[in-house]
Structures are given as C-alpha cells and as structure tokens.
C-alpha cells in the first residue's frame, strides 16, 4: 500500500458552502473521494491511499491538472483507490468538486 499527500495553493476558494461530500466506491477500477471544507481558502490537499505502488508521478500530474482547472481552495480530498485509471480519477475529482459547489 502506498500513501501520498499532494499539497497545492489555489487561485480561489471552492464555491458554495457545502462542508462534506462523498463520491464513488472502492471497487476494481474505481475509487472513492471524500471531500471536506476544512482548509484555508487558498489551500488544497489531496491524500491518496492506493494498493498500486510506484505511480506517484501519475497521481501528481492528474491532481495538478485538476487543481488548475477547478481551483478547489479550502478543500481536503481523501481518496481510497481501487486501482482506477487516471481518467476515472479525474472524473471523480471533478464530480467531487462539483458536488461541494452545489447548493446543499
């Protein structure tokens, strides 16, 4: 198992006021993303727990791209990975960010 922590500063805070959301399932080829609005507004942290070791650079690239696109300031993302492909990871992160910005 490998644990990764990726920290970023962001341009903006993630919109909305939702405090917590959960997306996805830890199944083969899938992942779950837990989001919590607990950080300072220009910070974003992504914590990853994965059984696939040695893909740190891929995760870093996917996350960097996501942060650049969505600017999810103030949000901590915690991921349990079931062996998802990078495009699935991007999809889930985007879903999670959208959920946090939604009205509830």
């Amino acid at each position, binding site marked *: *198992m490998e644990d990764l922590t990726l920290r970023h500063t962001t341009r903006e805070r993630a919109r909305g006021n939702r405090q*917590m959301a*959960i997306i996805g*399932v830890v199944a083969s080829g899938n992942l779950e993303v*837990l989001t919590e609005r607990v950080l300072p507004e220009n910070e974003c942290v992504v914590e990853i727990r994965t059984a696939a070791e040695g893909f740190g650079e891929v995760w870093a690239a996917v996350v960097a791209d996501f942060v650049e696109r969505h600017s999810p300031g103030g949000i901590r993302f915690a991921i349990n990975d079931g062996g998802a492909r990078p495009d699935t990871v991007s999809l889930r992160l985007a879903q999670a960010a959208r959920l946090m910005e939604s009205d509830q």
Partner: protein
Amino acid sequence: MIAAHPQARPSAGPDLSTSWYEASARTRVRLLLDPSSFREIIGPEQREVSPHLRLFDLPEQFDDGIVVGTGRLDGKPVLVAAQEGRFMGGAFGEVHGAKLTGLLRAARDAASASVLILFDTGGVRLQEANAGELAIAEIMRAVIEARLAGVKVIGLIGGRSGCYGGGGLIAGCCSALVVSEQGRIAVSGPEVIETNRGVDEFDSRDRALVWRTMGGKHRRLAGGADVFVDDRVDAFRAAALDLIASSGSFGLHTLEAEQARLADRLRRFGACQDSLDIWAEEGVADAASVPGMPADQFIALADKVWRIPRDAR
C-alpha cells in the same frame, strides 16, 4: 423496461424510477426515504475503516461498505442500513457488521421505529472471516431482540451481490422480505456448491439454473420472500411501507407457525428435482415461462398462486 420519467429535469439526477440494481447504497437510501430526511451515523468523514484489510494490501472504504442512519419513510421514523455490494462484495467485516449490530440494538431499545436492511452481500468477508461471522451471529440475535420488542425488520434484496451466506441467515430472521428479479437469496453460493460437490450437482455458470434455484421469482413463489417488485426504487419503497404496516408480532406463535410452514414445504416439494417442478406443483400453468415473464405479469401470477401468511416467519 423502466419508463423514463416524463418530465426531464435540468439537473439530470436519479429519480424514483431509478433501477435499484444499478444504484449505489447511498443512492438507494437517499431515494428510498423521504427527501432530505436521512441522517447518517458514523459516516465516511469519521473514517471508521477496517483494521484488517491492510494486512492483505487491500484498500479500505471510509464507511467500510455500509451506510447506516435514521430517516423517515412516509413521515414515520425508520432506522436504515444499506450495504454497498461493490465494495468487497458487500461482505461483512468487523466494522461493517458492528454498524448494523448497533443499529438493531437501538431499534430494540427505542421499540418505536421500524428497521430497513438493504442487503447486498456475498456473506462473510474472507480477510476478517471470524469477525464477520461473529457480527452476523450478533446481528441475528439483535434482530430477534428487536422483533420481540415489537419492531418490524424489513429486508430489501435486489443488488448485484445478492444476499448470500450469513446475509441469507439474517434475511431469514427478518419480519418480511422484498425481492426483485435481480435479487438472489441462498446460503452457499453457486461456485462453492460446484467446487464442493461437482458441476453435476450445480453448474455455477448456468445462470438460468442459478436464478431458478436462488433468484427473486423463485423465492417469491416458494415463500422465501414475501413481496416481489420491479427493479425500481419506488417499487421497493411501496413494498417496504406495505410490509411495515402488515407484518405481525413476533413470538412463540410465530415460530410454531413457521415450523409448520417449513415442514409443509418439505412435505410438498422435498422430492422435486428442480424449481420448475415446485412451481408446477403450486399450480403455475406454464412454469417454463416464469423466468422470462415481465415483473407486473409475474406479480399478478404470484399473487394468484399464493400470498405468504403474515403469521409465520
């Protein structure tokens, strides 16, 4: 097969006609209960994960594969547990099981709210086999304690992992069960029977055989489940409400009626070679047409054949 909702809504989210089978545990709970009424207990942000999966280099899930909490069903308070069948096959581990145990003990102590168990499980989680089995034993006892306190415990079965192993035993302790076409209920899984007894005893790759022997339609016709529904959230919701209202009290009279019911089943069908013979014996005119029959037609047929007496189980 499932009609799309006539009014398209701007936010394309699931609605009550959503497939139960396709929905996640969280979606099932959210759509089953009254809108915005669900309050999760020990939710994912608590990170109450399995302490045992790391030993096997397996990923955890923050809710350990089960969602539990309180909510309302048609205005009345209910306690709900929903298994996520896609995480480790919905199998019972230490934490997963303990969440359901605690929920049932709350039901017993409050003696006022019904319990809905949304089963989706292959049974015991191998990597935590002893803890999973023990959890199931504790849950079975807690179901009986709750029922003795007057609580209705309704099981809903229609997910991809079915209701196998110890899950099947917990289901057998419930006040009543709702099942769909996709639901299966059994103790040993098809592969386990084949591995232990050979392919002539049970060909696990023969899907039609699996469904005839363990599937929702058979369970409804043979009395293993009380109500058969179409694969839709609103159908499960309506059935759950109906069973909460109509399920009887639990006591010695129930057990005696159940003993008679099961003994009678053995007497009538104990020599049958296949479920087709059981259905024919029950008066189904064209037993071979049952597996392919659409839900509404099957429901009408099953109701003509028989309805489970509310005094047993």
